[in-house]
């Protein structure tokens, strides 16, 4: 566990307490089985917002607490423990980052306080295909300084069903197909010409694909640095998601340890079988290593460190590997019961693989780390 300030310790304890009491995994299951259209519970979200979490990285001037990314990571880790379905990552971290980094004063005034309050949900719409390739942008934005028209498609938009506003990556007609022609645009959820389609995914969370036909959009900031804002935003997203994944992995592991201490086969607690013990010990090792990587990534985001991109890739790759291992072992060690829908193991497994695909998988981040360091 990182060295925490008193504020951070309090925040973590508050998050842990809220999760355990107000949003145990049964809450997620209930939401899943309810046919909830948004794929998260709005009352639960209001409670989270009331606790101030949506504003943790937002400057105080815009209604946030400016507690920083380590703090946000602590909250997300706790949410990950019980798979809380929440727009916190998409809105309070990712979209808030993009607007804070790139928005002009008016845009910040318009959106950040509402995001911090939880009354507006914002999200980043940047993927266009099956693979994570953020620089591959076919969506176009044409028009003038005062208004742009967006056309194209976006895929796999997190909380795309609930969002009040989208931050959309699009290419402006500067004649080049380089990253420099990429800008970000604010598009209201109710803008004419925008249609959303629900994506029903295995983790039962809220995703949409979007189609834009000459949809009115407002450029985020004054332009010229869209790609750089998007790149930094994505690294923050990855670090935040990595924290959530760490929480899920840790919880999946300890639930499995509990099972090993209670399930009897062959007249023994199965936790007494050395083959399982060594696999458990290895998982503990991977979890501790992953924790170091995640904390270092959050710290790098917090400090705006120059090696943030590589540290973020390091963390996302390692926690992805660990979560994959732990969720597979969770099912295997539970045996048949873990294969049933009524057991929670499947919920962890499914969420794990969706997180793996989000913002670049292990292979993507190993390769990115290698590219950054010149291998």
């Amino acid at each position: 566990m990182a060295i925490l300030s008193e504020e951070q310790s309090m925040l973590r304890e508050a998050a842990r307490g809220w999760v355990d009491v107000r949003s145990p995994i049964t809450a997620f299951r209930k939401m899943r089985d309810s046919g909830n259209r948004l794929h998260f519970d709005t009352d639960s979200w209001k409670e989270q917002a009331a606790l101030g979490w949506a504003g943790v990285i937002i400057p105080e001037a815009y209604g946030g607490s400016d507690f920083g990314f380590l703090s946000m990571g602590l909250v997300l880790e706790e949410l990950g423990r019980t798979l809380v379905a929440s727009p916190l990552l998409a809105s309070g971290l990712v979209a808030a980052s993009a607007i804070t980094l790139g928005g002009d004063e008016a845009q910040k005034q318009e959106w950040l306080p509402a995001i911090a309050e939880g009354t507006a949900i914002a999200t980043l719409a940047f993927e266009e295909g099956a693979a994570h390739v953020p620089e591959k942008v076919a969506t176009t934005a044409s028009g003038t300084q005062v208004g742009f028209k967006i056309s194209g498609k976006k895929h796999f938009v997190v909380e795309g069903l609930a969002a009040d506003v989208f931050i959309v990556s699009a290419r402006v007609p500067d004649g080049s197909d380089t990253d420099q022609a990429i800008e970000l645009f604010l598009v209201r959820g109710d803008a004419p010409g925008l249609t959303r389609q629900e994506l029903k995914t295995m983790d039962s969370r809220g995703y949409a694909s979007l189609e834009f036909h000459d949809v009115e959009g407002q450029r985020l900031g004054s332009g010229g640095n869209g790609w750089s804002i998007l790149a930094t935003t994505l690294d923050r997203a990855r670090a935040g998601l990595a924290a959530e994944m760490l929480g899920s992995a840790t919880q999946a592991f300890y639930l499995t340890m509990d099972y090993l201490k209670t399930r009897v086969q062959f007249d023994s607690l199965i936790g007494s079988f050395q083959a399982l013990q060594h696999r458990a010990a290895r998982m503990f090792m991977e979890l501790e290593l992953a924790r170091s990587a995640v904390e270092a990534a959050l710290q790098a985001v917090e400090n705006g460190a120059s090696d943030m991109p590589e540290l973020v890739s390091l963390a996302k790759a390692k926690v992805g590997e660990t979560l994959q291992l732990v969720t597979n072992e969770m099912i295997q060690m539970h045996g048949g019961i873990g294969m049933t829908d009524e057991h929670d193991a499947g919920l962890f497994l499914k969420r794990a693989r969706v997180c793996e695909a989000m913002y670049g998988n292990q292979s993507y981040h190993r390769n990115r780390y290698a590219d950054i360091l010149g291998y």
Partner: protein
Amino acid sequence: MEHVGAADLSDFREEVGRWISDNFPVSLKNMANPMSREAMAFPTEDQEIWRKAMGAKGWGTPTWPTAYGAAGLTRDHARVIQQELLRAGAYNPIGGMGVMMFGPTLLEYGTAAQKAQHLPPIVRGDFQWCQGFSEPGAGSDLVSLQTRADDKGDHFLVNGQKTWTSGAQWAEWCFCLVRTNPHDKYNGISLVLFPMSTPGVEARPIKLINGNSSFCELFLTDVKVSKDQLVGSLNGGWAIAKRLLQHERTALAGSTTTAVEAYSLRELARKYVGTDAGGRIANPDLRARIVANEMEGRIFKQTALRATAEAKEGGDVSALSSMMKNANTRQMQQRTELAIEILGHQGIGWEGDSFSETELTVVRDFLYGKAPSIYGGSQEVQYNIISKRILGLPS
């Protein structure tokens, strides 16, 4: 088993090919075998025609005795049938646990009357069987089973709960392990047979993480079982159960060698990841891992062929079945993990138009793919068998 000259086989091959082309409904060509899914419970008209034709011919159980309506052929002939089916894009519609596990065991341990009663419907594919083995408290540790059969003179009265009973909701009969002596763990188990329609038998489907419910919990409440449906001797069921499990292991170990794989990793990667200028899968790290997995798959098939050849020569290959089950499972689990990785955002779908049928199949297969290392003797149990029985490591 006698050897067959190549000449005999080539005549036979021609006969089989002709018969298939005369009898196999064209509409089913290159369709997956519905055996492996609940589809078997709801056959189409053409599927019924094909099942009945193969059942009447006895070629679905080619090596079983003709006395029960089967074909009584050699393994070489059986292989020819398999090859010709494959060539014609057809499948063997006679299968399931009756064919894989129960039939061979009954041939070995059953009375004449039991064989005469139970084998012909299996040969024809009329009846499906389910296996009442696992219990909530007896999974890997099967011998701890608690379902009781009390001797009531002319019948047993069976009470208890089974679980992981595959296809119980669609099966006509059940072969079931019961405790007939509570004081002797190993020598207190018997194998009994009963129709699923017997009063007191209730099958409740278990919903799995992939959304499927092909397994059941089986509740048995005062189920009357006629005494002539005891297989083998009273309290002698554990030896038969081990034999059944061996048949199961062998069948599971070999399952991917016959199943048509629904997709190829290479083709998925070409489509979803793309190729480089040299025509190679564009992500070289992914390419290396795909190739490593496909190499393992090929080596597994080589091993299955080797086991078959060695068995034919009379070698004891039972030692191989545990290792083959684990090898097969490992390769399959790596393959399904790679498949969802390749598909990226399309590899996490659950339902709906945003995902193609193949994409949804990949996801469901991935999820269900976590099961084979658990059922049929878990991976850990197979490793225990290898280390104890084959390698002779001490307790």
